[in-house]
């Protein structure tokens, strides 16, 4: 079985500082989104279960990806395709889906395409569906349990009102929810050996696209502004011993007219 996992490097959100309402992204370390790790973990679990499987990671990110990719490779991926060309930068979700689809078509063999239900940074949740459409595949999103057997998947989806149990034939695109698994922490020796696994760097030309068909140039969404929200919360941390804090809180809430009406 051939499994493709799509991942994206993103800035470590906790490291983003705001200055004059603008986010400072310079020098912010890049990390994998939590859901991306759930995706690779799920692929690794499937491989362990079915035995014969090849996992290829398609990852988008900066030149730091050469380092970062060791983690998914150590978690169980067999091969990696790195989309690090600066031309890919600044793409919107639909553009990302296009690039991923082209890369996956070039990989050729794919029974399962797994990715997170959204990226932890922007959470647009568009890529999985758009990718499924581009690859002309069925999709199962928000998956919290996944079972692959005899060319068929059964999945439990976490929807608002219920858990939906669905089935489909391979190949299929799956987007996973965070509760599907607990990503493993790869051991050192696995990371070390991961360095020897095949890695390919593909630019736009390698996947049959021109530079102006990808990245910011091709973005279908314009960013007009991106500033820290102006918030007018009072940000009062109540001081004193516990009784004083409690008294102050209750007083404040009564004064605000939200308590004891």
């Amino acid at each position: 079985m051939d499994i493709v996992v799509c991942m994206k490097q993103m800035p470590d959100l906790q490291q983003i500082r705001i200055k004059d309402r603008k986010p400072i992204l310079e020098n912010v370390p890049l990390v994998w989104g939590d859901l991306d790790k759930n995706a690779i973990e799920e692929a690794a679990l499937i491989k362990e279960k079915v035995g014969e499987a090849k996992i290829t990671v398609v990852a988008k990110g900066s030149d730091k990806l050469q380092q970062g990719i060791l983690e998914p490779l150590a978690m169980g991926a067999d091969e990696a395709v790195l989309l690090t060309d600066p031309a890919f930068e600044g793409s919107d979700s639909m553009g990302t889906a296009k690039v991923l689809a082209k890369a996956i078509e070039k990989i050729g063999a794919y029974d399962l395409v797994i990715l997170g239900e959204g990226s932890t940074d922007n959470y647009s949740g568009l890529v999985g569906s758009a990718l499924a459409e581009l690859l002309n595949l069925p999709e199962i999103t928000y998956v919290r349990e996944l079972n692959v057997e005899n060319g068929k998947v059964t999945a439990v989806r976490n929807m608002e009102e219920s858990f939906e149990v669905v089935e489909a034939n391979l190949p299929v695109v799956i987007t996973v929810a965070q509760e599907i698994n607990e990503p493993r922490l790869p051991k050192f020796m696995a990371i070390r050996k991961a360095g020897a696994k095949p890695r390919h760097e593909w630019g736009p030309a390698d996947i049959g696209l021109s530079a102006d068909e990808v990245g910011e140039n091709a973005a279908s969404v314009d960013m007009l502004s991106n500033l820290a929200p102006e918030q007018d919360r009072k940000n009062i941390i109540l001081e004193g011993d516990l009784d004083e804090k409690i008294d102050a809180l209750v007083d404040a809430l009564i004064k605000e007219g939200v308590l004891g009406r």
Partner: protein
Amino acid sequence: MNIESKLGLDVFKIDEEPHIIINQEICRSCEEKFCLYVCPGKLYSINRETGDMDVECSGCLECGTCRIACVHGALDWNYARGGFGVQFRFG
């Protein structure tokens, strides 16, 4: 600026597992309780309900002052686990 707000400027990756464990028995026998004022993050406090010493590991700057100052050896002290704890942006 108070110490809580100052710590709020730093990046902390919170681990649910504490990395400093206090031996309350030894701690109770200590008269000086140096930890209460040597900690640059002011993370030690005496629990008013139980009388135990509490430490708020999530704001720990991992300097180790308390480990050195706790001459009675009440602290099972470690750095935060890999990938957790304070992450300095300037240093």
